[in-house]
């Protein structure tokens, strides 16, 4: 590290890390509240993972079904999450989602319309009524553009292709962030009393995933290192329908809208097998015969088809069918809409799915079924936050969107992610701005020594040493470990094995070595990302070992039942600190695990959950 390197330095009231839906909405809110706001994204603006969301934004607008309201949405969300959600977050989410959707329209979003000229809504798994505002199957793109164009028109400072590697602290409080420009590799220091994490998910630690390279769990790792707690990291959602063939696109998402719009699942002997997998918990609201299921699309007095059970149920069922030898040639099952809807309907409602299969797999989905299988998609666990303000256990550190925990409980319903981003993005931005203002002149300071350590650790991979490790090889080994040992179905022995292997990988990560220089060097970037991926993978495996039951996105072969004891508990993780605490580095970490009682909803909300239709 050249001692004379001077760092680019910026001072802000609020720094938002991540520019997907949550980060953009947080930055807009902080700006609107009068805070000097910076928005940092590690890619170009508008490319964040939100852009890949397909199906829609869940909000009880009641445009198609006047019977729908926030109470039903709250109930569906809690039941979908197997009642492990933070009730207050689920309440705020259900109440505020409609206003946040209309706000997007105010900023130029153009949703598909009903015949009466209102925002149209579509059916999705776990939602009692057609509830998802959408634009064909590219809703995420519409949302990110509307937010991006709003942020740009407000003149918010955007730092594109800048990656934050460390948070900075002054005593207990956050004081800023440290990162590098991808283009030049030069370091940047942000001084800011309030930092909003909006970094998204963790899926890139699995081999079969719908997530892009960005989903490395940076925010989860930054929060842990800053002393914050993570909640329920064992709950990882495997989306039931990812592409399985060709190998090059294995894991690529096939939207749930295919099922919402009439698609059904079949095995190799042509059976609609989901009727064989209706769990007790959803029996009363799920159709048990084909005739009733097929009537439901037009008449909601019928019960829902089992293909539209929550994602955890469908993913497990597909997994079982494949294991029982009733899978398709490439190790999936069949998703068929061709035999159920007209080619015109399919091309209009699912244009990007049509395009995706045609271009990448030579499959015409209007004529033949798709081959699909589960793919790692979303993490329900995340930074423990206050439900109203989104502040973590560390003063000045906020989290919103996928990186935050609690909202979705043990399993997220489709469509609830996009609404989560805008509801809690706005709250995080507002509260971050208010916190910064409240501090007045009593602002935390950035310590030069921490900055120097952060720089030194970031440059470690350039110092060639003994036993050099290739970051790409290490990444692949981590993906194999998580895929094989911390996948859909888990068991104690394998989880312990996973933790051992992760620990070995962490030790090896101290010897990561990269070639070339600091200018736009993906090998270096991956070496730094790996520290986060390893820590977050350790967190998932640790929490998965702790929770001895099966619930939502966490299935234990050795504890196959849902257990009321665990239904009242959150699994909370914290990093046992090293010195200096905040800065990222290689080597094994120690996590402490705590069982923390779940807050119970007040009686008037608890009553809503009893309604099983």
């Amino acid at each position: 590290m050249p001692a004379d390197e001077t760092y680019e330095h910026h001072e802000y009231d609020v720094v938002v890390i991540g520019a997907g839906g949550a980060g953009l909405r947080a930055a807009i809110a902080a700006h609107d509240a009068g805070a000097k706001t910076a928005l940092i994204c590690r890619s170009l603006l508008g490319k964040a993972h939100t852009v890949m969301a397909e199906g829609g934004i869940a909000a009880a607008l009641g445009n198609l079904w006047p019977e729908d309201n926030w109470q039903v949405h709250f109930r569906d969300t809690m039941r979908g999450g197997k009642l492990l959600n933070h009730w207050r977050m689920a309440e705020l989410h259900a109440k505020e989602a409609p206003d946040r959707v209309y706000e997007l329209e105010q900023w130029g979003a153009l949703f598909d319309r009903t015949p009466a000229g209102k925002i149209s809504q579509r059916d999705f798994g776990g939602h009692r009524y057609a509830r998802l505002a959408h634009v064909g199957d590219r809703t995420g793109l519409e949302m990110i553009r509307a937010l991006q164009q709003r942020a740009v028109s407000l003149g918010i400072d955007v730092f594109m292709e800048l990656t934050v590697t460390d948070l900075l602290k002054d005593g207990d409080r956050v004081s800023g962030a440290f990162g590098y420009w991808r283009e030049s590799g030069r370091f940047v220091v942000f001084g800011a009393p309030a930092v909003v994490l909006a970094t998204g998910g963790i899926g890139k630690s699995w081999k079969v995933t719908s997530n892009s390279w960005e989903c490395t769990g940076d925010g989860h790792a930054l929060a842990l290192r800053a002393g914050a707690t993570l909640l329920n990291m064992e709950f990882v959602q495997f989306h039931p329908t990812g592409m399985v063939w060709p190998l090059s696109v294995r894991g690529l998402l096939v939207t749930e809208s295919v099922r919402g719009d009439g698609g059904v699942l079949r095995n190799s002997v042509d059976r609609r097998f989901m009727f064989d997998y209706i769990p007790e918990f959803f029996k009363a609201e799920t159709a048990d015969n084909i005739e009733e299921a097929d009537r439901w699309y037009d008449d909601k007095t019928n019960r829902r088809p089992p293909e539209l059970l929550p994602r955890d149920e469908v993913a497990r069922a597909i997994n079982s069918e494949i294991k029982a030898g009733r899978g398709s040639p490439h190790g999936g099952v069949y998703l068929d809409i061709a035999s159920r809807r007209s080619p015109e309907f399919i091309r209009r409602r699912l244009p990007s799915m049509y395009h995706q299969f045609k271009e990448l797999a030579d499959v015409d989905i209007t004529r033949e079924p798709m081959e699909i299988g589960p793919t790692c998609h979303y993490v329900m666990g995340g930074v423990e936050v206050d439900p109203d303000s989104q502040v973590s256990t560390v003063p000045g550190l906020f989290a919103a969107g996928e990186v935050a925990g609690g909202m979705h409980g043990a399993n997220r319903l489709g469509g609830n992610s996009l609404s989560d981003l805008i509801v809690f993005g706005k709250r995080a931005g507002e509260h971050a701005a208010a916190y910064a203002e409240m501090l007045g002149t009593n602002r935390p300071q950035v310590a030069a020594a921490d900055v120097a350590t952060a720089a030194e650790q970031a440059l470690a991979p350039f110092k060639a040493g003994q036993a050099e490790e290739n970051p790409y090889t290490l990444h692949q080994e981590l993906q194999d470990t998580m895929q094989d040992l911390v996948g859909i179905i888990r068991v104690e022995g394998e989880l312990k094995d996973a933790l051992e292997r992760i620990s070995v990988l962490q030790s090896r990560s101290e010897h990561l070595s990269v070639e070339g220089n600091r200018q736009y060097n993906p090998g270096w970037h991956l070496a730094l990302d790996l520290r986060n991926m390893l820590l977050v993978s350790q967190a998932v495996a640790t929490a998965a070992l702790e929770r001895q039951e099966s619930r939502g996105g966490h299935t234990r072969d050795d504890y196959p039942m849902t257990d009321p004891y665990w239904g009242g508990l959150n699994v909370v993780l914290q990093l046992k600190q090293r010195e200096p605490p905040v800065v990222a580095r290689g080597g094994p970490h120690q996590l402490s695990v705590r069982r923390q009682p779940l807050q119970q909803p007040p009686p008037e909300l608890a009553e809503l959950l009893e309604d099983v239709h």
Partner: protein
Amino acid sequence: MLRIWRGDASGGELKDYVVPAEEGQVVLDAVHRAQAGQANDLAVRWNCKAGKCGSCSAEVNGRPRLMCMTRLSIFPPGQPVTVTPLRTFPVIKDLVTDVSFNYEKARGVPAFTPMASQPEPPFTMFQSDVERSQEFRKCIECWLCQDTCHVVRDHEENKPSFAGPRFFIRYAELDMHPNDSIDRKKMLQESQGLGFCNITKCCTEVCPEQIKITDNGIIPMKERVVDVKFDPLLRLLRRRRRQSP
């Protein structure tokens, strides 16, 4: 075999990489294989690898394409596939270019502003009325149309006064929005360079979203600009407005 341009702003050259072929592979897979096994520091921009984010734009055998949606099987077997950075934008390193030109143009677009008759949502808008704008909102901002457009491709001097096809359809989208109140036509003609376009449709040909940029966006905007400029009734109205105190 893959032939990739390696270098930076000071210059570079094509380098060959032999990567194993696999059924169904796209160009980006092959680039990633070269990166993981032979060139860890090979710079390439990508995100979703699903044709949805528009990050992995490059020129493959000279044609602007998304690397993630270009199957290797479309090229003749046995011949190398050449991958070079977008030519219209300055190279940063290898396949990564400085596309900030586009983000500057985006800042110049006056935002959507609702009409006084319907200032706040929920807006009543019909599918038939939003459909035209929706076509343009499919744009994933891959900048391939900007790259291929001959007005700027080899004419750096045109860049300050030319927004490019991506932004022509952004202006068209707002102009066709059923509830937008701002007239951006004069601006589009006078400062954004709509007149430079001589509708060769190169942009439409490279659009991975199959947006009919020229037919549905640029040509209608050119017509609307002309209508405003030469409509005799409007001209009379304008003159009277100028004359009134």
